[in-house]
Each structure stands twice: as structure tokens, then as C-alpha cells.
């Protein structure tokens, strides 16, 4: 393990930024932190989490896929892909770091999504262990340890500085490049910090939330549960939960006529939208009930079904804080667990 003194944090950022683009949480002036590119003078925000999730780095809200030149009867397909530049994301929390694993299972399984893979290969993730989790946090429910996040490098804030640990080759390379700023250390300070965090985690209101009643193989049990009606009745059908969610990965492919060609781009889409599954001859998900059910069944049953029991939620709590009508996965899980095994 390596140690960085409190005073040298900015030097670390400068050293990284000299090699490659560095993004870190910065207060955006509305009381929320968002990932921002570091430049001299940028102040790192220690806010618990960013408003938007870190998935944007690998799965941006919109991206161009290709272009078409149309002339008479002819169509030319133009591959506009470019090799992504190396970058570092600093300060990713345990939940978001775990979300990359979920996105990987979608985008890096056969057939591999080349756009995603390109960015994933070039990104180095430095996680920051949590010190002040909030009431909306429930990553522990899904086996995520906020005190020991994954990522290429893990960082802990300790009393007199930061402790860093490389977890992967990419992480080793990053730490090696800034080695001049670091000193060797043991894991005592880290353990103390972890203990403190874990004590708080245990006191959080959602600490006892369990995945009992949901999970792999429960489609038949849960799909027709009557509770979906009351759970979904207030849903506005907006895409807030989907778009702030670090694991939601559905997309739409659209064309834009620029006047001198066609740009085909993909953008985030939401299963909460009424036109998500709409076809010329009808829509299999007629009402908000079906759409709402799809979102939660996907995270709590279908995704685990296809991924050895791994849930499609990381407990970051963004949807709890952001849903306009305060309906969220926790309420869904609790409601489903309550009336279970009928």
C-alpha cells in the first residue's frame, strides 16, 4: 500500500493530468457534485456521490455510431469510430465501481460492444472508500463493501492523508507513474477507517434490507403479483430513475439528418417510456404497470437469471433521492418480500 500526504493531493492530480485526462467529482454549484475534467484550480469534492452516475464515461448519454452519405440510389456507410484516449476517473464510489461489472456483463459479453470496449480499455478507475454513507445507501444488500471498493486503484481517506492500493495492472501502472509522490505504508490506518465506516453502515436505516423474496428463478412467483398495480400507480413514466441509475444500460438507435448526410447515434433510453417497446402493430407493454414491472423485474430477477445470481442494482440510492414521486427499488423489494410465497 502507498500513502499520499494530505497536502499532496493536488500534486497527485497534476501528475495524473499530465499523462492523461483526469475526471473527478467537483461541486457544480447546485449543491451537487458531478465528474469534471481536472485542471489547475479544480477542487475535488468529497460529496458522498455524484448526481449523475459514473456510467457516462463508458456508456455516454449519446454517441455517434456511424454516418451515411446518400447520393441518388447509393448509400455509403462511414465508420466514424476513433480510438479513445486514455483517461482516469478518480473518486468513484464502491457502488458505481460495482456497476461497471454489471455493464461489462452486458456490453463485453459476446457479441462485444466495440464502442463500450474501446472506452473501458482506456479508462482507469480510482475508487474512493466511503466515510459518510447516507440513509439512501444500501450497497451492502448486494454484497458491495463501501469500505473496500473495487476499481483499478482503491483509495482511502485516513486521518493524515490518503492510502492507495493498486488492484490491477492498470492500477499498478498508474501508481508507478506517480510513485515520486507516494511513500510505502501498512494497512493499519485503512483498517481503522474501514471499521469506522462499517460501524456507520450498520446503523443506516436500510442496513437490514435483504434480497429475500427476489432474485434468480423467481419470474413465475413475482410476475403476476397484485402489488405491481399499487406500486406503479403513481409512476409518472419519466426516465429519471433510469438515467441516474449506474446500471441501466438500455439504449435507442436514432438517425439524424444533418442536411448533408445521416448521422446514426445511440442514446440512453428508458423502459419506463411508453414508446420503448411500441411496434407498428401494437405494444406488448400497454400500461405503466408493465413498464414499471419490467424495470424492476429486470434488475431483481431477469438479470440475476442470466448472470449467476448477480443483481442488476448496486444500491447507490440515486433513484431513492431523485424519483419525483419517491417510488424506488427499495419500496419494491420490501413490498414483494412482504407478501412473498403466496
Amino acid at each position, binding site marked *: 500500500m502507498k500513502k499520499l500526504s494530505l497536502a499532496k493531493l493536488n500534486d497527485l492530480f497534476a501528475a495524473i493530468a499530465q499523462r492523461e485526462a483526469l475526471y473527478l467529482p467537483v461541486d457544480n454549484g447546485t449543491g451537487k457534485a458531478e465528474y469534471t475534467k481536472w485542471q489547475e484550480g479544480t477542487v475535488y469534492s468529497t460529496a458522498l456521490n455524484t448526481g449523475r452516475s459514473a456510467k457516462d464515461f463508458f456508456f455516454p*448519454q449519446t454517441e455517434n455510431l456511424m454516418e451515411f452519405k446518400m447520393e441518388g440510389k447509393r448509400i455509403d456507410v462511414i465508420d466514424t469510430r476513433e480510438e479513445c484516449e486514455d483517461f482516469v476517473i478518480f473518486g468513484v464510489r464502491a457502488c458505481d465501481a460495482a456497476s461497471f461489472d454489471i455493464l461489462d456483463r452486458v456490453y463485453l459479453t459476446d457479441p462485444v460492444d466495440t464502442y463500450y470496449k474501446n472506452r473501458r480499455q482506456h479508462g482507469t478507475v480510482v475508487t474512493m472508500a466511503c466515510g459518510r454513507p447516507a440513509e439512501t445507501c444500501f450497497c451492502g444488500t448486494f454484497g458491495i463493501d463501501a469500505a473496500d471498493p473495487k476499481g483499478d486503484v482503491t483509495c482511502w481517506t485516513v486521518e493524515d492523508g490518503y492510502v492507495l492500493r493498486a488492484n490491477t495492472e492498470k492500477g499498478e501502472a498508474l501508481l508507478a507513474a506517480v510513485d515520486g509522490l507516494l511513500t510505502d505504508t501498512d494497512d493499519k490506518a485503512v483498517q481503522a477507517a474501514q471499521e469506522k465506516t462499517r460501524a456507520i453502515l450498520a446503523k443506516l436505516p*436500510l442496513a437490514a434490507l435483504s434480497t429475500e423474496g427476489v432474485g434468480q428463478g423467481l419470474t413465475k412467483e413475482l410476475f403476476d403479483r397484485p402489488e405491481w398495480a*399499487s406500486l406503479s400507480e403513481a409512476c409518472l413514466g*419519466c426516465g*429519471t430513475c433510469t438515467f441516474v441509475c449506474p446500471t441501466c444500460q438500455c439504449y435507442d438507435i436514432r438517425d439524424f439528418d444533418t442536411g448533408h448526410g445521416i448521422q446514426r447515434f445511440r442514446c440512453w433510453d428508458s423502459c419506463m417510456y411508453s*414508446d420503448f417497446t411500441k411496434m407498428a402493430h401494437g405494444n406488448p407493454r400497454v400500461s405503466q404497470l408493465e413498464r414499471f414491472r419490467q424495470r424492476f423485474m429486470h434488475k431483481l430477477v431477469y438479470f440475476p437469471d442470466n448472470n449467476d445470481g448477480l443483481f442488476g442494482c448496486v444500491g447507490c440510492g440515486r433513484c431513492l433521492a431523485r424519483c419525483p*414521486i419517491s417510488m424506488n427499488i427499495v419500496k419494491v423489494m420490501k413490498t414483494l418480500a412482504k407478501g412473498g410465497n403466496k
Partner: protein
Amino acid sequence: MQKMMEKRALELLADGTVSRVLGWSAGEFPYDMTPAVFETAEELQDGFVYNDFCGANLSKYLIKESRKEGKILVFLKPCDTYSFNQLLAEHRIIRDNIYVIGIECYGKADVEKLKAMGLEGITGIYMKDGEYTVETVYGSQTVKAYEAMAERCLACKSKKHVVYDELIGEDGEVVTDCNRFDMVEQLEAMTPEQRFAFWRGELSRCIRCNACRNVCPACSCEQCVFDNPNSGVAQKAAVNSFEENMFHIIRAFHVAGRCTDCGECSRVCPQNIPLHLLNRKFIKDMNAFYGEYQAGEDPDKKPPLGTYTLGDREA
């Protein structure tokens, strides 16, 4: 207040005046209430909640709910009654199927404000003598109620219920000195460059989740122009600055003269974009150009964009 509301709802359910009650149901935390329909006394007793965090405007749900079998009881705060009236004027809700109980309101709290004070890990919020005692896993703190009041409530335009079948609590007055256009005026006083920079900063955060549109009681179209593939502007994402601007300008324009300034758009925005400032600009301009008009106040009055005079100012 909650006790009185619950009691009255139980009575109305019991005597068959209504068959359902539209209110708020308890959440995981002291502040995350979800709008809900209660059909039985047990459901009401189990889950009905009313407190300072019940900010959601319930009137839009009536579009769907008033078309169902039986009468529904709805609790409306003063600002919600304006939305209700406007929906009524637009024939979007069926008045005969709704029983309105107006509830007094002295401003709703915004948990974001508490969180911005560094109150993380909230486990309990207790109101007493104009103060909230906020308990968190990191200790407890007392906050003056007005310090946690939602931005929109600080500029409340009216504490008067413009429509109700009965009232719980006092009816208030229209607040004439609410100063709700202050920020609009500040923006107007800026240079175009400054204004442009301000709005770019705000609108560039938009993630196009459509929460503002879907929560808006004035956005009651069955299919929005931005969802209609034949409109040529249907779009899933705000791809660039133009589309961010266009969505919000057009949305504000489509509700101009119908927007009651309930402030739901800004409340629900996950990116904290002050969308009400767009609507208020239209309201302010319409007041200045065509005479004072408050949407929802009087359902029989012609909206400014639905009428004209020969001597209107030139564009």
C-alpha cells in the same frame, strides 16, 4: 393535520360519499412520500401520511383517476387547486367524480435543502415550534423551518384555495408581495451574454428524463410532440445544446398561459434546473403585455394566448 385528514377521509369512505382517497403514503424515510390511492379504511390507517414533505401536486393524477368508477377524494394544497381548476377548464378531469378537500399550507419543506446543510444519513425529522429536529446517524441538529422551505414556497403566490368542496384548516389570501418574479428581473437586467451563459450552464445539465414534462399538470397531451415520431422533433436525448434549448423553450411555450406556476417542474428536476424561471418569464410577460392573468384562478376567464385585442403591442 394528518389526523384530521385521515379522520375525514375515513368518514367519507364510510358514508359512501367517495370510494377512493388520493393522498400520500409513507415511505422509507421521513421525507419520501409517494402519491397513492387508498380504497379501504385499513389501507388508510396503515399508510396515509401528511406532513411537510408531501409536496407532490396530486391534481394531475385526477385525469386518470376521475375517469374510473366511483368518486375519489383528493387533498389539494392551495397551489394545487389552481392546477385543478386549470385542468377543469381544459376538460381534462371530471369534476363530478371528485371530492376536493382543500388543506391549508404554510409552505412545504425541501429535503434537498437539509441535505445541502450537510445533514446526511437522516433517520428522523420532527417538527416543533417552527423548527425541525433532524436526527441522523451522525447526530441530530435543529433547523429553522423556513431554512428548509422549498424555494417555490418561499415565493408562494397564493394561500387561497380557488376550488374545494370542503376545507381543513384556514383558507388564506392571495399573496400580492410574493416577489416571485425577482429572479426573472435579475436575469432581465443582465446582458444577453450573461443570460446566455446562465441558461447554458443550467440547461446543459438536462438529461432529458422528461420528469418536468410528465409531472406538469399543464402537460396533459395524450401524446407529446416530442414523443410523436411524425412531428419531426421526436427525440429521446438532448443530443446537443440546440436540442436542450428547443425542448425547454417549446415546453414552456406550450404551457404558456396555462401554467399555474405550481413549481412541480423545478421540484422534480433531478439536475436542479430552475425550470420555473422559464414559465415565470412567460407569466411575467403576459401580465405586462396583456394584463394580469393567473391561470387556474378563474376557469371562465380567457387565457392570454387564446384571445387578442386590436391594440396589442407589436412583436
